[in-house]
């Protein structure tokens, strides 16, 4: 009945040690493997037929692809399409991890800040490396917008630097906090049902939290898809900064 218990990472199977690092399989990594396998399955099996008139799975796979491709194209332009594999992989992984986490008894990979922060750092590292590769030191124009007088620059530049450093944090915390809060809320309301059923006359009230859970589940479904989409859009926006800094 502890609403936090669902987030504990525990070892399963034999413990593997690799040069002193503990690499044994945990429930978290197991679900990462499941998510990756499901994404691969949907995309490979879905596009296997290459039918002119797509079936249900193929239509779904194509829709997801087109959706992300359109997002990347409209945010970063044609140049940004080279980042489509990165954005699409991130989006699919986050989407499937969020959705699988909604099935009772599963582990939500994206409710761990370590996972979401790693994703955010992948994005920001790509932005920084690509930005310096493409623009050299002109990438730093990102921090000093053109048309700002000298005195104001003293204030604007530190603010811009901090807001750049805050990006990976806001990117990871948003996804992690949403998933965490949603799952805790679901568990708390589920706990209410159990408590109420065992509380004598008050058991009449026990359907109320159940209705609440059904409503929350719908909301969580929306949030799961929305957060995956927001993550992909923000990845595009940040990559756009690497392509066209400071203008």
């Amino acid at each position, binding site marked *: 009945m502890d609403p936090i218990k669902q987030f504990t990472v525990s070892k399963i199977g034999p413990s593997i040690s690799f040069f002193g690092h503990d690499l044994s399989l945990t429930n978290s990594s197991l679900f990462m493997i499941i998510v990756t396998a499901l994404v691969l399955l949907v995309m490979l099996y879905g596009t296997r037929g290459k039918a002119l008139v797509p079936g249900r799975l193929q239509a779904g796979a194509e829709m997801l692809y087109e959706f992300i491709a*359109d997002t990347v194209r*409209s945010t970063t332009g044609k140049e940004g399409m080279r980042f489509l594999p990165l954005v699409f992989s991130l989006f699919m992984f986050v989407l499937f991890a969020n959705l699988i986490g909604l099935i009772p008894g599963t582990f939500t990979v994206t409710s761990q800040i370590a996972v979401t922060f790693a994703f955010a750092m992948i994005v920001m590292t790509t932005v920084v490396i690509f930005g310096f590769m493409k623009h050299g030191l002109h990438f730093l124009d990102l921090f000093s917008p053109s048309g700002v007088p000298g005195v104001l620059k003293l204030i604007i530049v530190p*603010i811009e630097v*901090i*807001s750049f*450093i805050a990006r990976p*944090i806001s990117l990871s915390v948003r996804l992690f906090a949403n998933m965490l809060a949603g799952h805790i809320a679901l568990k708390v309301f589920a706990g209410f049902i159990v408590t109420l059923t065992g509380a004598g006359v008050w058991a009449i009230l026990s359907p109320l939290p159940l209705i609440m859970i059904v409503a929350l589940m719908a909301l969580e479904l929306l949030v799961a898809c929305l957060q995956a989409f927001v993550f992909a859009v*923000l990845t595009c*926006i940040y990559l756009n900064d690497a392509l066209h800094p400071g*203008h």
Partner: protein
Amino acid sequence: MGNGIQDGDPRDAELKARLDTLSKAISAGKSEKEAEEQAASRRDDASVGRSMGMGFRVASELFAGILVGGFIGWWIDRWFGTEPAGLIIMLMIGAVSGFWSVYKLAAKPASVATGAQGQDEKATGNGSPDKRG
């Protein structure tokens, strides 16, 4: 007046025909309106998703700005031994940068802020005050 309807039989039929066409027109208009309303509610659903995404972004930008500012200030204090000054100043700069990114988010036309939207919004994006965007 009461028996005026009964004696004019041809006129009665004429009226009936007219009534029929009118009611058909009304029902056609109604279904058109219903379809329009359905489309509008679907648009509303999409915009609910968009504004929810926007809300989450605003909240997390603000939070992250303050967090990063505070963290940097805390480390400055630890390195230079300037006990509360670094934390206070950096916390304020962090909060300002959080608000600054929220301002940039809101000042942009919706198409840039949420990505996937079409060109129609770009055209109407009423000249953002943010010249960098």
